């Protein structure tokens, strides 16, 4: 359990930073949005990791079995809504990218800046 816990936190950091890298380094706007989705998923993973109680189960009561240990429902609620909000905001970002493509004819950031400078 000890090793798995450290592994969870480290995977969170690695995935977070892979997303961060895509956001800062990539020039293509769609790739940046993909990076943002990965970054977001890493945060979700951290929250859900923290909600776990060892030996616990999903926080859904069962009449027949009592005395169970349940994992923490609160981070789960926060992330559940965050996922749906995340896809809506990603869709908004994609909408903006589509409009940029229509106006500038490109989705590469450097080319957009080039056109703006002219």
């Amino acid at each position: 359990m000890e090793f798995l816990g450290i592994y969870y936190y480290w995977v969170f950091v690695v995935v977070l930073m892979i997303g961060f890298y895509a956001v800062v380094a990539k020039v293509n706007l769609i790739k940046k949005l993909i990076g943002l989705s990965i970054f977001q998923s890493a945060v979700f993973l951290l929250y859900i990791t923290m909600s776990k109680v060892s030996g616990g189960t999903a926080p859904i009561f069962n009449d027949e079995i009592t005395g169970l240990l349940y994992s923490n429902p609160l981070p789960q609620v926060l992330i559940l809504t965050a996922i749906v909000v995340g896809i809506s905001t990603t869709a908004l970002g994609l909408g903006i990218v589509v409009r940029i493509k229509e106006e500038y004819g490109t989705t590469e950031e450097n080319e957009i800046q080039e056109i703006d400078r002219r």
Partner: protein
Amino acid sequence: MKVLFGVFLLTLLVITAVAIVRTKNLFVAVMLLGIFSLLIAANFFILDAADVALTEAAVGAGISTVLFLGALALTSEHERTATPHRLLSFAVVTVASLVVLYATFDKPTFGDPNAPVHQHVAPWYLEKTPEYIDIPNVVTAVLGSFRGYDTLGEVFVVFTAGIGVLFLLSARRGPSGRRQTAEPPGAAVGLRHDVIPRVVGRLLVPFILLFGLYVQFHGEYGPGGGFQAGALIAAAFILYALIEGEEQTLRALPQSALNALMVGGALLYGVVGLAGVFLGSNFLDYSVLASNPVSGQQMGIILIEAGVGMTVTGVLLSIFHAFAARDRA
């Protein structure tokens, strides 16, 4: 065994993420992102978050892939420019990683029942849900009742994002916009001419819809609720649109109906909240909705979950249609 499984899933997650960032082909990146979502959903599931896993699988692997593909169809499938300042970016990311890694050493041990996150209100929710609300799924109880304000806010964010996409993509194309050549009518209407997708798709759509409704109305007893159901129902209609084409889908569920769903869901949520005020209690307190506080709470949760489901369905489908209509124009 569980440790092995967890390590396996997490390692696959990292490999997929690296592949997504490395590939130059955006189509491949989007497909891999779908796999990434499915893997993370599996991770959520083994971390006891059944509701979250269901949402992530429906939203991340289903809807998000479709939306990204819709955007790719309107832009380009290839990343043209090589990454500039690669070393500088690596340096920034490395420094940031070290900071976050350093922070993780202070975090409580994984699964520790005495971690601070388990000390605050969460035990109270677990203890009081049977008494105040009496539904088995604590996640739904917290989402719908204890933290109803939060959820109301999230629904409005989803609603606002939907309106934003409609505003952005329903604008007429400017003179500088590059007009694509219109397809001859009837040339490529969905996958209607491919036998296997058509037969399998037609068979699946009603069952996905039925499952969506089950998830909506069984959310108090098992994993589920409005957010997941909304995504599932939207996915069923998107599948229908992929098989039968846009027109047919808009005939089955016209844009006006989607607008009504979007607005109606958010309004229903707000009205249920206000009903509490008018019946002499606080905003979003459902106890006064029925003669008995517990059944009032249950009624309130069912109503607001219905509102959430309506808004999410309406918004996701409107966004999908906005992208698809842009493609046709």
